[in-house]
């Protein structure tokens, strides 16, 4: 917290002391203390225990039955970086065979500290998911630049920065502009050459500084110079290696050149476990997963349902010798054949292998952290749960989010657990984090509180079976889903004891109702609408209160749901 004598009316925080009382404190994975209080002050954890005396100036947060975890740490990310201009020169004058280093993706001198933006959206996005610290690296090609450690809070880059230039982020990505090196083989030989050049240049510089008389002076090359910390093994290389072959090729370079390497953003590390173990190489796995197999399965089941109706037509025509292409109401369609089915099964099997990467590493005793460079903040919880469903234990998942990254990033003395003396980086959830419906209520970063509201699920109004309603007329309706509001009109006519009618909305044409069921003031309207080239059932379930109603809309058997409200037009 900064103080100033400018005597402006900037409002400081009321207090920097907090007491979270009577909670389940997960000190570290596998060690939970019940009915425990955590007191934090000035950005540090002061005390963890039961029956503590609460400091007079503490803001007390009653955390009964809540869970407190150490704040999550991202092992690799691009959080907090402002939009960079594309540094690669597409200038035609660039010599393809001898481009400037930036065009070739050789920018190890770039430091992420110059690109930090305290207002960048991802900071809040990941903080909401429980992240408090992150290893941030620049975006780039074969040698993107140096990474730093940041707090996910702060009003300025200076406040965010914890440790600068503590890693080199590298990859096998070739140049963007088709200049040398434009392929993986070019990149690998360039890595070798730059590394050896840096080793020799570093020796030369030392010799020259010791005794320059009569000695050829070193040439100044900022890319080479910025590699001295890598060749001297002062900092590690986080080598981006998503697929098995990327990792294998990176490890080949590491074996030849000898730099300290962390296998970063892996998606298939389970295939190279032996070599990882041999080299005692730390692993940061990708939190990104392929699209789940069951979403595909739902689509297939729908297709099969449709085909069920169509098949009957085929059988009438010839049984075994039917053509592979059939005429349907949506046009000519290919029938799914057994080869396709087998290919899809193998693809699904592969998806499962990717989901089980974390579980496999745990089984083989390899500690890992997470990379979020290609993951959306909103997918973090979802993907962790998918990994747990595939066999990862909760303790290992928590370790990957806390103690393991603290270890890999050299922060084990100040972060990763809920212990006295460590940074006040905490997550408070209303139930165990690993419950699908858990909500994060508070996140403390660097001792500052961030509070999150819990979205209440809208309760359906209870219906009254004895009420009498008159639906006839024109109603103005509003359908809301996913932040989108769609307006529309419902026309209802009474004929005898039944109602008929139709609905028109901003997004659909006039659709006649199939059925209208009335039970007191509970009304259920069923209709069918055109969607994605097929027919989808729509069910509107509402409770009518005189000239207003509210309820929900269910489209295509639960594929989409929305809230709906309506009011009768006065005529």
């Amino acid at each position, binding site marked *: 917290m900064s103080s100033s004598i400018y005597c402006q009316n900037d409002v400081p925080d009321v207090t920097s002391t907090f007491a979270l009382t009577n909670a389940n404190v997960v000190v570290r994975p596998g060690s939970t203390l019940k009915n425990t209080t955590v007191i934090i002050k000035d950005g540090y954890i002061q005390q963890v225990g039961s029956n503590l005396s609460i400091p007079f100036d503490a803001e007390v947060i009653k955390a009964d039955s809540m869970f407190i975890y150490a704040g999550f740490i991202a092992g690799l990310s691009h959080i907090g970086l402002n939009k960079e201009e594309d540094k690669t020169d597409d200038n035609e004058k660039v010599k393809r065979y001898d481009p400037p280093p930036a065009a070739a993706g050789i920018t190890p001198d770039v430091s992420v500290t110059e690109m930090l933006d305290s207002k960048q959206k991802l900071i809040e996005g990941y903080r909401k998911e429980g992240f408090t610290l992150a290893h941030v690296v620049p975006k780039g090609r074969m040698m993107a630049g140096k990474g730093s450690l940041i707090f996910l809070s702060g009003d300025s880059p200076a406040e965010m920065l914890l440790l600068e230039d503590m890693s080199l982020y590298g990859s096998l990505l070739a140049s963007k502009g088709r200049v040398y090196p*434009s*392929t*993986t083989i*070019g990149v690998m030989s360039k890595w070798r050459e730059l590394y050896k*050049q840096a080793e020799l240049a570093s020796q030369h510089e030392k010799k020259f500084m010791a005794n320059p008389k009569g000695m050829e002076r070193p040439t100044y090359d900022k890319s080479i110079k910025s590699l001295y910390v890598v060749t001297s093994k002062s900092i590690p290389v986080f080598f981006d290696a998503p697929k*098995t072959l990327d990792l294998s090729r990176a490890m080949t370079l590491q074996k030849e050149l000898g730099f300290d390497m962390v296998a970063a953003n892996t998606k298939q590390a389970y295939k190279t476990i032996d070599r990882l173990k041999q080299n005692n190489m730390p692993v940061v796995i990708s939190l990104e997963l392929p*699209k789940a197999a069951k979403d595909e399965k739902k689509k297939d089941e729908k297709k099969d349902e449709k085909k069920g109706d169509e098949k009957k037509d085929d059988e009438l025509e010839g049984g075994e010798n039917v053509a592979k292409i059939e005429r349907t109401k949506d046009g000519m369609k290919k029938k799914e054949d057994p*080869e396709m089915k087998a290919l899809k099964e193998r693809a699904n099997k*592969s998806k499962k292998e990717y989901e089980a990467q974390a579980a496999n590493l745990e089984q083989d005793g390899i500690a890992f952290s997470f990379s979020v460079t290609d993951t959306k903040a909103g997918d973090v919880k979802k993907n962790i749960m998918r990994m747990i469903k595939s066999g990862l234990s909760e303790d290992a998942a928590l370790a990957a989010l806390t103690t393991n990254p603290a270890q890999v990033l050299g922060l084990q003395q100040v972060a990763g657990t809920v212990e006295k003396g460590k940074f006040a980086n905490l997550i408070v959830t209303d139930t165990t984090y690993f419950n699908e419906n858990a909500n994060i209520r508070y996140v403390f970063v660097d001792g500052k509180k961030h509070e999150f509201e819990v979205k209440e699920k809208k309760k359906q109004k209870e219906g009254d079976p004895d009420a009498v309603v008159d639906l006839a007329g024109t109603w103005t309706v509003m359908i809301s889903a996913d932040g989108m509001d769609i307006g529309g009109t419902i026309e209802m006519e009474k004929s005898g004891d039944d109602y008929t009618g139709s609905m028109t909305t901003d997004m659909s044409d006039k659709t006649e109702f199939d059925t209208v069921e009335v039970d007191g003031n509970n009304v259920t309207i069923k209709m069918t609408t055109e969607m994605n080239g097929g027919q989808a059932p729509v069910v509107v379930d509402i409770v009518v209160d005189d000239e207003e109603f509210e309820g929900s809309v269910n489209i295509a058997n639960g594929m989409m749901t929305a809230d709906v409200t309506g009011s009768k037009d006065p005529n």
Partner: protein
Amino acid sequence: MGMSLSAQQGDVLIKNGTVITITDGVKENTDVLIRNGKIKQIGEGLSVGDDVKVIDADGMYVMPGIIDAHSHVGIDVVNEATAPVTAEVFVGDVINPYSVPIYRALAGGVSVSHAMHGSANAIGGQCETIKHHYGEEDPTTYQMKDAPRTIKFALGENPMRVHGEGNGIQPKTRMGIEQVFRKAFAEGQEYQNAWKKYNSGGAQVAPEYNLRKQTLADILNGDIIIHCHSYRADEILMLMDVLGDYGVNKICFQHVNEGFKVAPELAAFGATASVFADWWAYKFEVYYSTAYNAAILTKNGVVTSINSDSGELIRHLYHEAGKSQKYGDLTDNEALRLITLNPAIQLGIDDKVGSLEVGKDGDVAVFNNHPLSIYAVPQYTIVDGIVRFDINEDPDDMRLDINPDESFPAFHELNAHDEHRCMEGVYEFLFHQH
């Protein structure tokens, strides 16, 4: 999949076949025993314990695994086409053990191939001789141990088009290509001399490290065999001239379609030749060719092989070899040498493969008919004593690594691997406007 895919060296007994040794005649009703990946015994009535797999080759023909001296199968990158000299790059860095064309090559009886850089550059990258250990996921297991280093050179239209036309730099003409070689060798010499001086204490500061020049120095020192893509007689003679000036003599000319015109000169230089059986007229420089090329070169004493340079041709090299009997009347042994011992010599691995001799690697191809017969179909292909292809255990989907986000198009696209890959990665350069 029914194969044992974990070990890299195996034991197998091939019983009772007609064994074509290449170096010791044809032996009927003979067994070949492979132990720990090496040929242990060739003889009649051999027996083994229950731990060894036995293949009944009765009525079948047993020959050494076929060797393809010019291939791009199993590598992810073929051309680093941004500079006319890229000696430092190495295709061995991008071996892809998941590449299905490797399996298809095995189905064609090929156990070893020379994975090459493409022909976009006058001096291209280093190549790698690989063993087709399909099933192994670690790419380093594909490297053939102790195989000599090789490098790709290219003469003619390809480097002229990519760099001269495409980028406006030398080489634009054949005389330009000659100067690219001379300059590159001169720089390699200069580099070597500078390091020699520093290492012997003659200089205080080490010269700047340059991997490209270092590789050129290695070529000058005879550490690397040159494999040169070539067609016309004039450029073939030119390169021999240049090499003579720099004291380099380890060279195998590839394609060398006009080799028949300069066969005596090739033989005198000690150059070898790796040719197509009957593929020409696809470019103007390949216009003047003959199907008798392999035979003429052979009869003039040039060590000659037939290669595929194609993921399609590699599947029937035995038929390609057979063509030299129609066009040139080569004997059975001469024809089969074109795809076994001769390519082994050209790759410097003839002490390990290329014939069935005790002590050599257990690389064997088993056919249902004589391999030079049009009715030949490979039945088993064995690499280092492991059955890597068995026609009776050949599932439809032989992929080892599936992309989980794979899409399923309604039709299967033509696999790029089946086409001529020599200019892969280069077309964008040619059609990109400047």
